[in-house]
């Protein structure tokens, strides 16, 4: 199931947790759990917050509202495993 998830993410056609859960015929909690494993393995990288780039910026407070939720990007290692 983890392999299928990695492959789905690598395909890039769907990228939201609910859509992935539907595609894999499982629950969103399960997809979130698998994303956690992929992240700890270094195959996905969390990119979901503004973080340091905004720190100290004079326009920080006029910055648009941050999108809530989390986002992960497929890493080079993840891409390599998905391709195998």
């Amino acid at each position, binding site marked *: *199931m*983890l*392999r*299928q998830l*990695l492959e789905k*993410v*690598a*395909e*890039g056609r769907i*990228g*939201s*947790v*609910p*859509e*992935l859960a539907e595609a894999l015929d*499982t*629950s969103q*909690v*399960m997809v*979130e*759990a*698998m*994303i*956690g*494993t992929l992240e*700890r*393995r270094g195959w*996905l990288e969390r*990119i*979901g917050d*503004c*973080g340091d*780039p*905004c720190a100290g*910026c*004079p*326009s*920080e*407070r*006029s*910055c*648009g*509202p*941050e*999108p*809530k*939720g*989390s*986002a*992960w*990007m*497929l890493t080079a290692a993840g*891409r390599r*495993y998905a391709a*195998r």
Partner: protein
Amino acid sequence: MNATPQTIPPPSGPPRPAKSRRLVVGLAGQPNVGKSTVFSILTGLTAEVGNWPGRTVERREGSARVGGREFHIVDLPGTYSLTSNSEEERIAREFILAERPDVIVMLADAAALERNLYLLAELLLLPIPVVLGVNMVDVAEREGVEFDAHVLEAALGLPVVPMVASRNQGVAEVLAAAAAVADGEQSYAPERPEIAASHREVYEEVVGLVRDSVPEGVPPAWAALKLLEGDREVTDRASRWLPPEAWQRVHGLLHEHEDAVLDVASARYEWIGRMVRAAVRRPRLGQVSFTDRFDRIATHPAWGLALLLAVFGGVFWLTFSVAGPIQEWLEDSIVAMAADALSGALAGAPEWVSGLLVDGMLAGAGIVVTFVPILFVFFLALGFLEDTGYQSRMAYVMDRFMHRIGLHGKSFLPLFLGFGCNVPAVMGSRVIESRPARLLTIMLTPFVPCSARLLVLAFLVPLFFPAYPALVAWSLVVGNLLVLVLIALLLDRFAFRRERLAFVMEMPLYHVPNPRTIMVFALTNVWTFVKRAATIIVVVSMVIWLLVSYPGEHVNDSYLAMFGQTMEPIGALMGLDWRLIVATLSAFVAKENAIAALGIIFGADGEGLGATLSAMVSPASALAFLVVNMLFVPCVATVAAVKQETRSWGWTGASAGLMLASALLVGTLVYQVAAWLGPGGASA
């Protein structure tokens, strides 16, 4: 341990004779499952805190007595798995393999069992019996998650105890179950995950190769799985445990089957799926299903984009409908009254002082301040979208769209932030490691209409097009985004290496927004804007007044007119006279200055700004002016940020040049087409 063991009331049911042997219990679990609460309840004042030998990680242990039986409880570090990814994971598995507790009590969060059972799948491979305490069942119930402990117990083949540790429910029971398993009074026949068929053969070969060489206490099957998982610590040790020939063979197999780790982890998740299928039922009605249903539209590739555009249109409509009349009232009454009062107060002052303050500062910065209501309503709408959870869908839909035009997965955040302000958005591009992808994002970010540009739009569109402001503003934003897409396609095709990276996004549930949160968000942004108006816009307004008032009597004889007139041949292509040209140029310092400049230049005729503009600027020129202001070189702060992030004057010049060229090209095109279609020729 010298302290007296903490005595916990025994679980309900018939009393059982106490056993004399003290049991060592390892308390395991992922972070945030209530392990500390359970440990505190069990050990109380007997708890001792030290460090794990040779490590900086805290080791907590203590004693408990339940039903006359004494337990020694060791709180293991919170871990997601037992692979050597972290110090905590190495400590937890070393404790189990080296110190051999009698039983492991693993705690799990009832609302997220799927996430927690991964650790259980790993614990079951070790030679210590495990009891599962499913904590926070009350929270899970409130979230609509139904959990059947008996079904899960039957599926797993080990004791499962529902718990609410915060209310001391199930704590004694889980320890009693642990004692029953350790004493052999309760059956323990766990169903363990198996590796997928595609790698079973290689797994069995590795087990055979390591069986006679692993140290006592390390299960060969566990060691083989860890090797296939690429566990660095076990791999290092295996090279010393195994004879050279066996290690050569294992090493070769691991290299050949590098992807076996996927099958090992996949098998665990398939096992988790089987275990929870009958035992856990998640809600199908209410909030969660509303989120699911709405997301079918909100995140759909086509409908999601349509909804996004409709929401943008709705935000503009609301802004103009609610705030427009208030803004007009402020301009007609408060600013006019302030001008009269200030003129009266400065009656005896030199003419240039009166002009500078009334016609310069008040006509410029004052008129900018009048659109505080527009700003407030606009940010209320954005805050609402954020607090309901929809904004994440906006980001997702935009990202998917961007992805199709070759943008890096990480570009979505900088580009999304660009709707607020381009400066942090350009700075945010540093999260992208790849230089070509980062440069592409930096080049595109200034094309995202920032809040200042949107506000200039929100202010000027009703003045130029009072009959249908929302439609014109919406079309301009959509047009701006189309230009962004076109530029992205061209840059991706001709200037940068095509690099497509996938990403996945977890979105929050939709929920009823909190009015206070939205209000704070809107007020914070309005206050930031007012501070800008009080500083940079005031200064620029006064400078423009000076340039527009000297040396001649009439505005057409001013320094600013002389400067602007030198550019009129270019401006004529877009229907812009010198006044509209200098208003556009003043926006380079800060975008809002375009309004201040128009206020000073056109306000000099004594009419209200709206009446003057509609009388003196044709619709085609007005449209071209708005287009040029949307696409023109970004503010000086953004240019500085581009220089800082690219560390190149060449790329900074290219960014500014690209925007300037786009503004001139699209502005000319819009003006010529609009003039040809009929809405007026050159400005008066």
